[in-house]
């Protein structure tokens, strides 16, 4: 099926109506993708994640859908954009949010220039074949530019929603975020979906995001993967950090049948800081794969990365976290932690932290654990009358709730918490109710 899948996706890419000024990107992508071979279990980077189920499906190109169901986060003060089946839905988007972005299709010549300057250049050669596929298919996208010393008051909330059509479809989305010197912004990339509302269909989203955080600028980036369990999601996030810049990322993997997310962070100039948290909670037969790679190319940069996962039922997750300290990256401070809980005997986790250090004056630490719950924590709860089963649920949820608590946006935390709690068969109303009334 592998060759057929490549041919099929290539056919779809060639079927788009291209933008003239992006044709060279399309051509390059199509060429690279045509030459690609689909990874197998023998491909090191895909060892634990099979694409078989994805290649089994015959995809069409997505058709625009008039009325996408795009969830609203109650209480979230944000500028909201809705991208429905890959198309920006201007009627469902806030006017203020539309002001903040340039749609590739509508870009004026000077904006085209700015887009081309960024497009593909953060990603560079680092993307795998699905990034090539994204290039091959690109005929629209969103460009967010935060100008020098500007501060975006409210987060930009981009909701990607897919509604079932005649046949399963592929959506290639592209997002570019550029923060100029001294600017600040919060961007929420939200991949949504709900089989009961959107219609159950095995749609495939292939999302590429390229981010450049300029000198002394700060980006808070939430990437929430909350798609329906029938969906497929492959994501590439590429981040360039300039001098003294700061990236704070939160990556959530909850939805879709198959998720593969690659996150690549480049510390390009000194003084930049990357703080990245991630949570994945696959259930049933979901497969979630996070590959992160932080490139410390220069001196005096810091990275603090924490990913936690809880695997239930027959779910499977992979976390591969690489930190690469180049020879010039003296005085680097880098920490990577990955902790996992398996709730059943049939759940699976493959964790591999990789620290590659070629500089001698650095402080780095990494750790990965796969654990059962802490005995002393469980005993503490039991000694207060709470049953062992309830204690396990509370502790499992607490394990990831700790990272949710670190979210800066309270409304977002309040909205996400019950969705996660539900995965543990827990009625989380209590917690919200209690703290709400306090």
């Amino acid at each position: 099926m592998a060759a057929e899948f490549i041919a099929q996706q290539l056919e779809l890419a060639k079927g788009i109506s291209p933008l003239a000024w992006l044709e060279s990107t399309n051509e390059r992508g199509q060429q690279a993708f045509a030459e690609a071979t689909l990874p197998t279990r023998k491909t090191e980077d895909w060892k634990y994640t099979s694409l078989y189920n994805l290649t089994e499906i015959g995809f069409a190109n997505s058709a625009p859908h008039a009325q996408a169901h795009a969830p609203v986060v109650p209480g979230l003060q944000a500028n909201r954009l809705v991208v429905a089946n890959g198309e920006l839905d201007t009627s469902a988007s806030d006017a203020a949010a539309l002001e903040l972005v340039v749609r590739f299709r509508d870009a004026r010549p000077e904006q085209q220039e700015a887009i081309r300057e960024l497009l593909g250049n953060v990603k560079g050669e680092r993307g795998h074949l699905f990034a090539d596929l994204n290039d091959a298919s690109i005929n629209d996208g969103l460009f967010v530019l935060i100008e020098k010393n500007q501060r975006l008051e409210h987060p930009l909330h981009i909701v990607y929603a897919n509604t079932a059509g005649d046949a399963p479809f592929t959506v290639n989305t592209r997002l570019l975020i550029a923060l100029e010197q001294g600017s600040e912004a919060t961007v929420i990339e939200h991949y949504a979906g709900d089989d009961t509302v959107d219609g159950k269909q095995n749609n495939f989203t292939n999302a590429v995001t390229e981010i450049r955080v300029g000198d002394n600028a700060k980006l808070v980036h939430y990437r929430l993967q909350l798609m329906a369990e029938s969906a497929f999601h492959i994501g590439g996030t590429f981040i360039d950090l300039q001098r003294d810049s700061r990236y704070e990322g939160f990556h959530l993997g909850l939805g879709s049948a198959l998720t593969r997310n690659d996150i690549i962070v480049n510390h390009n100039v000194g003084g930049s800081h990357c703080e990245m948290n991630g949570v994945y909670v696959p259930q049933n037969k979901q497969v979630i794969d996070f590959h992160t790679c932080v490139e410390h190319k220069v001196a005096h940069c810091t990275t603090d990365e924490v990913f936690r996962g809880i695997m239930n039922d027959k779910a499977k997750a992979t976390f591969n976290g690489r930190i690469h300290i180049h020879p010039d990256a003296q005085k680097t401070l880098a920490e990577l932690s990955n902790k996992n809980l398996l709730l059943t005997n049939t759940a699976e986790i493959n964790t591999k932290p990789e620290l590659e250090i070629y500089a001698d004056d650095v402080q780095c630490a990494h750790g990965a654990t796969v654990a059962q719950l802490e005995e002393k924590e469980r005993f503490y709860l039991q000694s207060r009358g709470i049953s062992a089963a309830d204690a396990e649920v509370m502790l499992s949820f607490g394990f990831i709730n700790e990272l949710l608590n670190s979210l800066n946006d309270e409304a977002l935390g309040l909205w996400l918490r019950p969705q996660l709690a539900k995965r543990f068969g827990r009625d989380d109303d209590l917690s919200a109710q209690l703290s709400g009334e306090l």
Partner: protein
Amino acid sequence: MIEIKDLKASVEEKDILKGLNLNIGPGEVHAIMGPNGAGKSTLGNVLAGREGYEVTGGSATLNGKDILDLDPEERAREGLFLAFQYPVEIPGVSNLEFLKASVDAVREQQGKPALDSVQFLKLAREKCKAVNLDQSFLKRGVNEGFSGGEKKRNELMQMMLLEPSLCILDETDSGLDIDALQVVADGVNAMRDANRSFIVVTHYQRLLDYIVPDYVHVLANGRIVKSGGKELALELEEKGYGWLENGNENGAE
């Protein structure tokens, strides 16, 4: 209230309790003192049912029921409460939610109606105030980032919420300054009544100035080697434990 007979227990195959006898009547406060390594903390953990503390002989009967075969949560619901020497921090689990789950479980066992969240909050706020903890502590993770004294006060608050019939205070005074000790002792004293008993485990006599016991026992080498009134604590303070550890190993009641 609780009757402990010839209790023997081991930890990692090492015998720690070697035939401990203790009878505590309703409303009584018994202090257990002893040198480090005598088995003082083991006693609390064994009674509370901690994993890894293996009972190898004897019995412990709480209100007429043998508790040694019960799960830890069942013992708690039967009215046993262990205030930990080192309460564990559980980030991510809200203190409030933990307390509610705990109170719900214990009330259910006691046949009392469940509290709704408004009633519970009222109660929790009240107890928070009683132990001089700011209400913000209810919202935080269980013991997360609490100071030593705050952790002990959180233990005390739990005790007040659960209204157990037997409270075991495991070295509650360790690491507390006089002010914090005073708060904890006031809370304990306020809870003393004719139907509630206490086992106060401590290494230092100082605590007993604040929580005055009815009886004092010395635990050494896994047995009670001497028992007496509160004045025994003063004697121990003066003479240390050495004179009891050597030779006199007759179990005292």
